[in-house]
């Protein structure tokens, strides 16, 4: 057996082991966080009902059953989809742009998706299905704008990219302010909450869209992980090694925009997930994208589930926006990561 083949096999085994472990963690998070909320539910009966996938009530009252399966579980699953999407998108941007700071929220891509969603709602009265499309368009346009702005004569340096992100973010923020002023007063309040990242508006129609996009996106980027590994050597070298740089770039841009678009349409701009989770994945599992991208997808799901559980319990029965929690956890963790690097 040749050395690269053996190494590939080692990588594959490492990928499978870490993904299985993370998937188990994700399952545990879904189950355990379903037991926590503003209304106490009997633990044993809830576990029994969850294990039966809702086919038996296990002695839960109809209200308790509804709380578990109509409110809490859909919200947790949406949190997983949003977290997985954002972390995958972050890992994708970081690999493609060869920049550890690339993150949908910090690059203004989430804002692009938010503008798309707001335009969809205010001017077109969009529903759960068309909203992600508008959000995707907004995210894609913002991505292209950042990418264009970041490419100077000397190529895209990390600093230039972040500056481009700042410019796009601030520009789109003012567009958001502008659209909000056009909105009637009764809707502004719900929008400000949504803009901070909020999962309380979960409806069951959102779920299939968000989960499908999250899973498909994570798989697509994982399948492109080898090319992304080579791209990290630099676009020229990657090209010489046989990577279709142009194609990979388009795939990552489209997929990442779709991931950001669907999560913003569902829950607003939840920040820092795409930054913190891929970083942790790389720190613990190494920078091979074949491992870190699927690991980030699963880890992101766990991260947002836990953050949203905090959001809905710390001041229960009142609620906080989940974006406030992810930023509270994310920003200090990021500073720590920066200092360690």
């Amino acid at each position, binding site marked *: 057996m040749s050395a690269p083949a053996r190494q590939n096999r080692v990588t594959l085994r490492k990928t499978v082991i870490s993904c299985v472990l993370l998937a188990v963690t994700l399952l545990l998070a879904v189950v355990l966080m379903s037991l926590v909320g503003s209304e106490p539910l009997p633990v044993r009966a809830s576990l029994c009902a969850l294990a039966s996938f809702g086919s038996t009530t296990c002695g839960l009252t109809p209200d308790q059953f509804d709380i578990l399966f109509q409110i809490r579980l859909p919200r947790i699953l949406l949190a997983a989809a949003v977290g997985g999407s954002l972390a995958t998108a972050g890992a994708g941007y970081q690999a493609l742009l060869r920049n550890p700071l690339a993150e949908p929220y910090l690059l203004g891509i989430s804002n692009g998706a938010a503008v798309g969603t707001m335009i969809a709602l205010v001017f077109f009265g969009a529903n759960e299905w068309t909203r992600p499309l508008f959000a995707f368009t907004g995210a894609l346009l913002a991505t292209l704008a950042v990418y264009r702005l970041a490419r100077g004569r000397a190529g895209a340096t990390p600093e230039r990219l972040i500056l481009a992100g700042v410019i796009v973010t601030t520009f789109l923020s003012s567009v958001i302010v502008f659209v909000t002023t056009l909105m009637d007063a009764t809707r502004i309040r719900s929008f400000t909450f949504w803009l901070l990242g909020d999962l309380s508006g979960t409806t069951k129609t959102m779920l299939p869209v968000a989960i499908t996009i999250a899973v498909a996106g994570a798989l697509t980027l994982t399948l492109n992980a080898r090319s992304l590994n080579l791209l990290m050597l630099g676009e020229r070298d990657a090209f010489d090694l046989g990577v279709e740089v142009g194609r990979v770039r388009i795939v990552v841009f489209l997929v990442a925009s779709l991931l950001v678009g669907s999560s913003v349409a569902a829950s607003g701009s939840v920040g820092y997930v795409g930054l913190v989770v891929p970083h942790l994945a790389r720190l613990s599992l190494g920078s091979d994208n074949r491992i870190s991208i699927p690991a980030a997808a699963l880890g992101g799901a766990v991260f947002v589930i836990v953050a949203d559980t905090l959001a809905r319990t710390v001041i*229960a029965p009142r609620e906080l926006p989940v974006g406030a929690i992810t930023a509270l956890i994310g920003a200090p963790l990021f500073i720590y990561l920066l200092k360690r690097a």
Partner: protein
Amino acid sequence: MLSRTSLKLLFAFALLLTITACRSVPKSTLDGPVTRTLTDDAGRRVSLPFKVDRVISLAPNLTEIVFAVGGGAQLVGRTSYCDFPPEAKSVAEVSDTLHPSLERVIALKPQVVLISTASQLEVFTQQLQNQNIAVFVTDPHDLDGVFRSIEQVGEILGKKEQAATLVQTLRRRVNAVEQAVKQEQPVRVFYQLSAEPLYTAGRGSFVTDLMRRAGAISVTADLPGDWPKYSSESALAARPDAIILPTGGSMGSGNSAVTEALRQSPAALQGRVYKINDDHLVRPGPRAIDGLEEMARALHPDAFK
């Protein structure tokens, strides 16, 4: 030496600013001496001219109060949300409740500006005071607070008697409602201010008091805050007997559907979902009594036969 020149220019400019700042001591827009002080709901002692004939209202409920006490002719400015009574629409607009145009307010030369969202307008209030324009804050948290607002506005506008008569009439209507529902079993209601995200009325909201007087117990009556965001599962677990949807007024068709979490709740299944004109429930003014009557009749139809 560009830098030195620009530095000098900057200094000169700063000096100019200081001088003009000193010179622009606010010119009094008041006629005659300040003859009275009133304490507003923010606990501020507000100095007012004895005779007020130019007032701006920055909230729809205050505009309604101004007209209801017969001070409509004294109103020179209002917000874009002030759409009642119809006569109000012919008064000049000074933008919305949260972003009033300072220039337009000053240009209208009011003696008093009435506001209700005090905490969000601190800077604005300061600027008005610098212009010697009195700012009066109202902040009612129950029906008595609404009556106090009416009396205060009446006193400011020199319509004390009209205000007293109005309050008397309103109190009589409130008493009638309270008498009618006295023997009725209170209904446990959930007040849905908006569905997505779910907002409701908390401890500090005057609607909570309104519901109590209408023969209802709000399931969120003890929640801190005026209009808190509420957990869907808690709403479901509270098992309200009825749901109140403020909608159909300024809201249009907004908020006309029960939040998804409560769609299968007993209240919704039994058809005990009551749509009440939101203008009567979110504006702490005279029409809040209409809201009270509408709620009481919806919740206790037998008591009004």
